[in-house]
């Protein structure tokens, strides 16, 4: 035993370093295997879908060559284009309204002297309430009022959860916002209004944009609430509703292409949102 130790020390640094390196590798191995498996589980289905969207036959059975024909088919499908347009309209308006309301709500909640439990619950509820419940509630509400449902009711409904998410993103930034810079601005002679536009707003802007992108993504992807509040007829159908009706009874190659595009758009929006969030932390 003592002999071993002696040799190890005589050999000096290289031996010790190599031993430590091997130990580190053995320690890191299980973690890497776990991550590989979990990421495989998360991304394999998506990867298969993306690959199939370029498969000429469109069938999962065999690879019959690279082709973009399903993407071309999408462009010729007026139902899908119409649904995509509706989705864009809904997402843009819902994002605009929810970004303004959510940011103001965040400012209101974070500048309060005392935390209000009721307010906290109200801002938290849209994120945890089962969407089917919110969907039937809104359906009941709109039909009780005798409103004709359509894109406008979907927008109004989407703002409910969109604004909660915008609010939580902006609040996260406000939590480590140094309010003394606001006081400093006032002290230097700026009015409350000027202070907001010259000091508070620029600091918050990245998180507001990040929140808006998140809201946009959520709106583009939302299905259940839109499904319940779209009203009858095909005129106000959104993309997720169109997808649902297409996949309800099986696999269609066009959906593979559509899914790839939709996922690409959300992933891009999220990457930007994440990047903005990171920038603001620095």
């Amino acid at each position, binding site marked *: 035993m003592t002999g071993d130790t002696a040799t190890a020390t005589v050999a000096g640094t290289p031996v010790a370093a190599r031993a430590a390196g091997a130990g580190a590798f053995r320690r890191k191995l299980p*973690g890497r295997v*776990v*991550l590989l498996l*979990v*990421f495989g*589980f*998360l*991304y394999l*289905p*998506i990867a*298969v*879908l993306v690959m*199939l969207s370029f498969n000429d036959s469109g069938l*999962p059975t*065999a690879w019959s060559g690279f082709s973009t024909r399903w993407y071309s088919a999408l462009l010729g499908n007026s139902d899908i284009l119409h649904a995509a347009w509706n989705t864009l309209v809904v997402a843009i308006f819902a994002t605009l309204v929810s970004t*303004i*309301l*959510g940011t*103001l*709500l965040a*400012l*209101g*909640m974070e500048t*309060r*002297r005392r935390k209000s439990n009721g*307010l906290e619950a*109200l*801002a938290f509820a849209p994120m*945890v*309430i*089962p969407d*089917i*419940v919110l969907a*039937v*509630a*809104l359906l*009941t*509400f709109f039909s*009780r009022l005798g409103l004709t449902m359509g894109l406008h009711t979907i927008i109004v409904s989407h*703002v*409910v959860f969109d604004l909660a998410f915008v*609010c939580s993103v902006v609040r996260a930034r406000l939590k480590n916002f140094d309010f003394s810079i*606001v006081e400093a601005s*006032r002290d230097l002679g700026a009015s409350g209004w000027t202070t*907001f536009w010259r000091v508070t707003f620029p600091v918050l802007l990245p998180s507001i944009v990040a929140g808006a992108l998140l809201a946009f993504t959520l709106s*583009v*992807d939302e*299905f*259940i609430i839109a499904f319940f509040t779209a009203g009858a007829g095909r005129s106000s159908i959104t993309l997720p509703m169109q997808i*649902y009706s297409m*996949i*309800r009874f099986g*696999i269609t190659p066009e959906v593979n292409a559509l*899914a790839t595009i*939709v*996922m690409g758009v*959300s*992933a891009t929006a*999220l990457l930007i949102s*994440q990047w903005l969030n990171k920038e603001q932390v620095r």
Partner: protein
Amino acid sequence: MSFNATRPNLLAAPGVAWLATFMVVPCLLVLSYAFFQRGVWGGIEYTFTLENFARVADPLYAKIFLNSARIALTTTAIAILIAYPAAYAISRAPRMRQPILLFFAVLPFWSNYLIRTYAWMVLLNREGLINNMLRSFGYTGEPLSLLYTEAAVITGLVYNYLPFVILAIYSTLSRLNPELMEASRDLGAGPVRTFFRVTLPLSLPGVAAGGVFVFVLSIGNFVTPALLGGGRFQMVGNLVYDQFLTANDWPFGAALGAALIVTMIVLLFVQARATARASGESREAQA
């Protein structure tokens, strides 16, 4: 923006008004419907009754409720068992790499729910990738009917909610003071005992948060049972859907929705209590 008393309320007012009008009022309205009778032609008869709630407890529906609860519970357990090691591995990765790993673990969560579910239809189909692979490995029997089974529904639910559970568990693990684990080692506990006596108990709030989330969303889900269960597996979500869009029995649908909300509130409350019990660690970690 200075701290005066009315400004914050003024700022919050539009958002609060929106949430009150388009969330609180509709929820209360639909809840009130649960106390009325169904009209002959599917409308509402404004006569007070508790019959709708009695029907929720009716063996036929109670069975669906319990079945949903069982599926949701299985989903939750599996999701936690997969998410915990993943979250732990991310929290142990080099500091610089953690945000990237976490981002890619959560990314699928923000992509379209329908598409993620659809991806599993592609994989599990009789003509799907898994059956294809089996065949190429020399399997000659009947293609396995993987789709439209309870296992398919659970797989889809686990797949869809896994990212959130990873996120919830990771966020408590990453806030733990690493010196606590070192202290345990220093006091003579090996890595395994350190994990079970220090790391695991302190990360339970994250496990609870993630678990409650998965359970609530699974039990109220109707897309996954419809797509991966082929409508053969009725869950509470499907039942609510049917009452409103096919059976036209809104009062009963409302009662079912109320039952879902109550389940959710109870679980959130239990989770809040559990977190408060283990509360020391968040403050300790910030110190």
